[in-house]
């Protein structure tokens, strides 16, 4: 198993929202990837966006500015 790391995890209400996030992140070179929703978070669709905690920026603001929706987000050891 991989060593657990602290990550920002963002969940979504729908798969469409998750894919929209991935599409935009890839377009703008935002680090991270889609992963299954960690068990600590019990909501949203089955996909979540996991990204490094040291990303230089406010991901919430970044998403809001692009009309991207999320369900929850926080930092988790995953």
């Amino acid at each position: 198993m991989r060593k657990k790391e602290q990550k920002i995890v963002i969940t979504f209400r729908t798969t469409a929202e998750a894919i929209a996030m991935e599409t935009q992140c890839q377009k703008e070179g935002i680090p991270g990837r889609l992963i299954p929703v960690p068990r600590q978070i019990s909501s949203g669709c089955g996909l979540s966006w996991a990204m490094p905690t040291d990303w230089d920026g406010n991901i919430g603001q970044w998403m809001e500015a692009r009309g991207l929706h999320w369900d929850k987000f926080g930092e988790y050891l995953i």
Partner: protein
Amino acid sequence: MIYLDNAATSCRKPEEVIQAVTDAMRSFGNSGRGAHGASLDASRLIFDTRRLIAELFHAGDPSRVAFTANSTASLNMAIQGLFKPGDHVITTMMEHNSVLRPLYRMEEQGAELTILPADLKGRIRCEDIEKSVKQNTKAVVCTHASNLTGNINDLELIGNICKRNGLLLVVDASQTAGVFDIDMEKTGIHVLCFTGHKGLLGPQGTGGICVREGVSIRPYMVGGSGVKSYLKTQPEEMPEVLEAGTLNGHGIAGLHAALLYLKETGIETIRERELLLMRRFYEGVTDIPGVKVYGDFSEKALLFRAPVVALNIGDYDSGEVADELACSYGIYTRAGATVLLLCIRLLGQWSRGPCVFPCPIIIRKKRLTKPFVL
């Protein structure tokens, strides 16, 4: 084979559509049901298809596009999910059974229905809509174009009437999607139902429903969504609220390729070509003794109508004519009821229906002088 039954389904699909379906069948997992590569590949492509559809119909947020099996499924979803007993709904004689039957069912359950008449050329008068509005009128449900007569409804005008009277506008775009511009925002369409296998040139078993922001449809089908699986109820968010069960990912991959093909070719180019073929066909048959053509072929309508020519020959049964065309000439067309029974009755052809000749759709830029079919 000379295939002239494109109003039922487009037979010749672009090669890239066939390839996309094959590729998807070799690689796709279940979209929205996992975070592994195969599932994500399906989810990504389905999302991009939503984006292309939203762009094509000016539907706004791609999440407002839900995939279904066809227009019938979408129309059932809209009609059964928007109306309740006591609501009054206005529709027209031009409608296909995929509109009328769900409405008749709602009528049985207590909804009120007004079916607007058409004239002898199968045209409705938009002003009749306004005259039919009552206090309990909730919506207008209408087709964009008739697959029998080819007559087109003025959606902008109908949209304005709906706006003035606070009504929902539900449109059946089965015959026009992929050939005519449809702008949900400009025309004020609240719900647009489309199928993927006709003018959009995708595989059968694909279709969808675009629902404008702020409009909520009660799902008639609930089940697996890959989202909020611990809840007892269907998630309320679009598009999952209308997408219970595994999506037709393989078919949607084909639809995706078809949408790219349409974008590259340009629906205007396709429309011009189809209308040209239709006019040529119409001019070729209209003066033949005994041939009776149905629908509006006035000079104005000839410039802007769905490329369909419906006709009868003398007193021959249309089925007999279609059979003779198929067996002796390899010309495949549609005869009989064509599921537009009210319209056929209006045209005085209740017992036999006409033969319908929708013009071919597939063209490639390099083949403009030599169509794919014909």
